Structure formats: C-alpha cells, structure tokens
C-alpha cells in the first residue's frame, strides 16, 4: 500500500473560508407556472434530495391564474440553502426563485384557527389571552371557541402553547406567506 508525503503547499489564492455549518431558517418565494404537477415537482425535489420543509403554501397570484407563488420555509446550512435555490431554478416550469431571507427585510405572516374546549375559569382566561394576542373569535359554543390568529410563526406558536394549557385544542395553520418589504415588485 503506497503512501507518500505531501509536497509544500502555499495555500489557496483566495482565503478559503470554511463553509458555514450553522443551520439557518430561510423563506423562499418560488414563482411557477400554474400547471398540473408543478407542486409535485417542487415537493419531490425536497423529499428526493432530503431537504427539510417547515411550511409550504401555494396559490395562484395572477389575474389569469396562469402563475402561482409557492412560499417555502426551509432549514439548512449555507451550502444546502444555496443548493435548494439552484435545484429549484433547474425545474423547467419555474419562473424565478427568491431567497427572501437572503434578499433582506421581508414580511412573514401565518394564519391559524385554534379551537379550544374549556370551561369556567379557563374559558374566560382563553378570551383574555386572545384579546392580548389580537385574536378574533371565529366561532363559539357554550364549551368552546374557535380563535382566528395571524402573525409571525413565533406569535402563533406562543398563542397555541397558551391555549393548549387551557383545554383540548384542535389546530389548523396556513403556513407562512411572505413578501419582501419596499416598493420593488417581483416579475412573474
């Protein structure tokens, strides 16, 4: 088995920064043709290549319904996030891909419907908390409320956590929708 030593190395011309291994959360806006199978292509890419999907929303966004916007929240190292963007851009029916986290300031909103079954004191308490969070009552019975709350993922998370402490809950969440701040409009 041959082993030999290494000759002298002066090093790379560019300072070679070791890739950042920190896992970060990124929000993407993916503008796609609204055609059959396009969502399957995107989801298949994530599952096939082992990328994480924290949330995904999709809806048409043009007057003629020919174009959809997919918002994806994902996590990964810098190299993986870069790969996700490049891989998405490779799909044929994709118009463009925006890494909103990388591009700068953006607004992220989620909507949740939270049903909580609670009695007496807990019932009153749930209303008080809803008020603090600015959640609306969307439905009520004598032993339950359905609250409608919107805001950042963090805010929705903490609201749900509090409701869980007060009674049995059922939760429906929309996933994150996001858009960049400022006057710039993404072309489709």
């Amino acid at each position: 088995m041959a082993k030999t030593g290494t000759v002298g190395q002066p090093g790379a011309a560019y300072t070679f920064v070791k890739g950042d291994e920190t896992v970060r959360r990124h929000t993407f806006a993916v503008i796609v043709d609204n055609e059959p199978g396009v969502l399957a292509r995107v989801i298949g890419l994530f599952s096939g290549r082992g990328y994480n999907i924290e949330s995904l929303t999709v809806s048409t966004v043009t007057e003629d319904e020919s174009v959809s916007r997919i918002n994806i929240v994902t996590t990964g190292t810098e190299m993986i996030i870069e790969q996700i963007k490049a891989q998405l851009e490779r799909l044929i029916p994709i118009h463009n891909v925006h890494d909103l986290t990388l591009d700068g300031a953006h607004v992220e909103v989620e909507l949740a419907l939270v049903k909580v079954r609670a009695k007496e004191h807990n019932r009153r308490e749930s209303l008080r908390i809803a008020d603090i969070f600015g959640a609306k009552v969307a439905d009520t019975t004598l032993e339950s409320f359905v609250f409608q709350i919107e805001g950042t993922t963090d805010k929705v998370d903490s609201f749900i956590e509090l409701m869980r402490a007060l009674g049995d809950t059922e939760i429906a969440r929309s996933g994150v929708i996001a858009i960049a701040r400022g006057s710039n409009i993404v072309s489709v």
Partner: protein
Amino acid sequence: MSTQQLTGAEMVIKALADQGVEVVFGYPGGAVLPIYDALFKQNRIRHILVRHEQGAVHAAEGYARSTGKPGVVLVTSGPGATNAVTGLTDALLDSIPIICLTGQVPTHLIGNDAFQECDTTGITRPCTKHNYLVKDVNKVSKTIHEAFYIATSGRPGPVVIDLPKDVQFASGTYEMPKQVAHKTYKPVVKPDRARIEAAVDLLLSAKRPIIYAGGGIINSGPNAAKLLGEFTRMTNFPITLTLMGLGAFPANEPQYLGMLGMHGTYEANWAMHDCDVMLAIGSRFDDRITGRVDAFSPNSTKIHIDIDASSINKNIRVDLPIVGDAGFALEDLIKVYKARQKKPDAAALDRWWKQIDEWRAVKCLDFKTDGKIIKPQQAIRRLYEKTVASGRETFITTEVGQHQMWAAQHFDFQKPNRWMTSGGLGTMGYGLPAAVGTQLGNPDGLVIDIAGEASILMNIQELSTAVQYRLPVKVFILNNEYMGMVRQWQELLHGGRYSESYSEALPDFVKLADAYGLKGLRAENPGQLDDVIDEMLAHDGPVLADILVDKKENCFPMIPSGAAHNDMLLGPVEEGEEAIGAAGKVLV
C-alpha cells in the same frame, strides 16, 4: 404552410421527422398502436425493434453519445414505461439527450387503474429533466418540439412525453418547429467575461496547475474538445479526465495524466491533491472523483465552469464559479489568455512536471502477464492495439464492473464520442444495447462492447436486435466467473466472504451466440487471445467473444471509499492490513 390538420399519431411522426430524427428505438403495445400504424405508413423514420424497453433507452443513449444527436424512444404504457425507467435514470445522471414517447390509456380512463395504466409522469418525474402528459391533440406537436429543445439544450437530459391513446387518434392542428424562447427555461450558455478574465489570471499565477475536464466537454460537442486541446497545449498544463470525459483530450499526448478518481491513475490523483490552481470544466466533483471531501485537493484555488449552476458548490466549495457552456468558456479562455501575452512561471511549471514524472514513474497501470491465464488488462490492451492496427474508427461501450474500469484504464481514446459507458448510475446491461445504438449511428464504425459475464446477461436479449438489423457489433466478454467488482469489495471490506458474487450456472456463451444466430468465439489461454481478437475484428457481422480471464484479478489503483486521493491502493492489500476504515465501509 406552417399548420396542418393531422391525427395525434401522425403528428408524432411528422414532428420527429421535422426535428431531423432518423431512428427511433421502440417496442409496440396497445397504447401506442396508432403511432405504430402511422410509422408503418411512412418511410422517413426508421424504427428499430429492441427486445426490452430498457434496451431501447440504452440504445438511444449509445446513439446520442456517439453522434451528438438526441436519441428517441417509443414505448407503450404501463410495463413499457416502467421498463424504460432504468434507462431514463441512466440518461439523467449522465446528461444524455433522450426523447421518450410513452403511450398512455385514454384520458377518460386515467386514474381508473385501467389495463396497463401507470402514473408515468409521476414515476418519471424524478428521473427525467422534464416530462409531459399531453391531453390535447393541438398541443402534441408543440410539446414534442419543446421536448427536443429541453432535452438538447443547457445540461442535456431525458424528456418523457406521455400520450394517451385517444389523443393519438384525435385530429388537430400541426405546428412546425420554430425558434421560440421558452417562457421559463433559459439556460445560461455564455460565461461571464469578467470571471473568465479572473480565471485566466489565476491560471497565469499558478505554479502547480491542473485541468480536470469531464463529460460536459463531450456534451458541448467536438468543437469543445478541440478547444480544450488547444488551450491545454497552449498553457502546457497537465490534464486529467473523468470517466465520462475520456476522449475529450487525446490519451496519447504527453500532457495527459490519465483518468482520475477511484480507479484513476496515481499521477492524476496526486496531481489533483497537490495542485495549487484547478480548472474544473464540464466535470462535477462527483464522489467517485473526490474521495474524502475534506481531504480533497486541500490547498488549491478552484475554478469551476459548468452549464448547470446546481453542480457548482454542491460537493466541493469552489473559489471561482462560472456558469456556462464548456465550448463557449474555452473559446473565451483562449481569447483572454492570448490577449494577456503572459506565460505562467516556467520554472515552477517545470518543477511541477518533474514531480508529475516521478509519480508517473510508479507506472501504476502496469500488470504482470502470466503464461497460462489471460489477464483482463492484457486482453483490453491487445484489443486496443489491434483496433488501432485495423485503422478503423472504433467505438467502445461497456457494461459495469471491473472490466469497465480496466477498459477506462487500458483502452486509449484520442477523440470524443468514442466511449459510451454508464458512469453516473453504473447500470449493468448498458453496454450491449448502447453498442446497438452506436452502430446504428455509425454504420461504418467498429463497435465493441467490453463486457463482464454477469452484466451481459442483463440485456443479452438485444443480441436478437443486432442480428435482425445485421449490426456487426462485437461483444468482448471478460469472463472471470465472478461479479468481479462485487468480489473485490467483499475482499477489501468483508473479509473475503464472497456472498452471492460467484457467477454460478453460466451459459455456454459460444452456444448462446449460435442460438441467437451470430458468431461465437472463445479464448481460454494467452496463446489464443490474439487469434480470437483477429477473428472477431475480421468477421463482418455480430460476434460474441468469451474471453476467459484470471478470476482473482483486482482493479488497481483504487482509492477506497472514504479515503483521500493521496491514500491510494496500488496493488493487493498485504495480510493484516485494513484497506478501508469503518467510516468508509458504509459508503458505496
């Protein structure tokens, strides 16, 4: 007239003909009968009846890789489509332009578990560059034209078009192909000029440069190979090629270090490890190339030119990424390099070549011959020498295993498009159908499938195709009675426990050839080798040559999985020595 009323099936044939297609590899069935009927009524396109749909795709791959034109496949729904999946995946991983037309049950039955229905677009989504289900006859021609554009432009790949039977029967408007920019698909082919200039400056500053080129050169076309040669000679830099890139630079020129990677040469891998500036072009830092990623060429500045942005920074972080076609990039590199009117440090380059010559002196590909038994390397070397002596344009295809690696090491390629092998997927059974397709694309060429006795049985039925169309392909089996590559790994990793890797109950290949109606030959010892090769090459028809070789020979050099480039096995591992660490064992 640019539009015309036709049935869907007629449109398929017309669209293919208008795209310049001469050959279609296919197999009929219920869901494509209208297309077969339209084929019957015309004579612009030749249909080659394969014996298995996997064979159709590999044949189309061989045709495409050897001619530079897209390969076309026609199969029926259900099992026809599922049989094509291996070939499609193979073409995706090796970036081969394929258009695969699949029949589908009529639209009103889709989703009903109808006879021979499968979700073809669902199944092939991850193994194609793109796919379509065409439900409207008026979209048939446009979709086919678009498919050709997508399959052949940018990084090439396979495209599937699923055609329900009712759409094939329906009448509609045919559209001629026209140059239209695709709405969303816009591959970048022209590299950024400023980056090319930065690349040239880096290369000019190099003291230990290397060019590492791959299949992207072949895909870009013969001109890219020509330019690669020009640039390499101009700079006097050493060059190494990937398995997919063999032939992109002439193997007999002194600047060529041979193939790199897991079974690459000592000098190529060491030069990659020790270089200070690396120009990667049309290559993708695949795991067979890099070995241990954190030990891969640790002190070099890396320039990476690739047409696929997602290939850059995927496995290895590079310093200077350039997206673009290899041919255009080389054209610009040459222009800028000439304009600089500078040369790299000649003394440093001289020292570098001296170092490389020391590595070369190891003569890592040397092998010992034996009076009694044919060495597989020897068989390939003799085959190479005799094909050179024949003066014929020679095309080599391979199956997968040790014989494939020996062919890559010992058969020298001077030109692109002469070497067809399954690199990315490593598909046993690729070589024979690929040889069929290669022969069809190159009727006067000498086409040889260098095979293993196990692999050849995976698509042996394609011998019938060769016989039917009088294709004089030669199958050169290095018969070691083992799945040799599996056996080699079992020897290195699993204590020599040869679990299921012995080729038990082999057919008599000479009799098998006879049964299929072609010539069968056998060489049992070194004394018979030359005669068998001569007879094989002289025969004006297909030949199956069974070459009995050393059963125990292993393929070296080898970088075991999980090891670094400078940690190479040059020969058999000594007793008690661990070739592969625990971490490497979990790798493939």
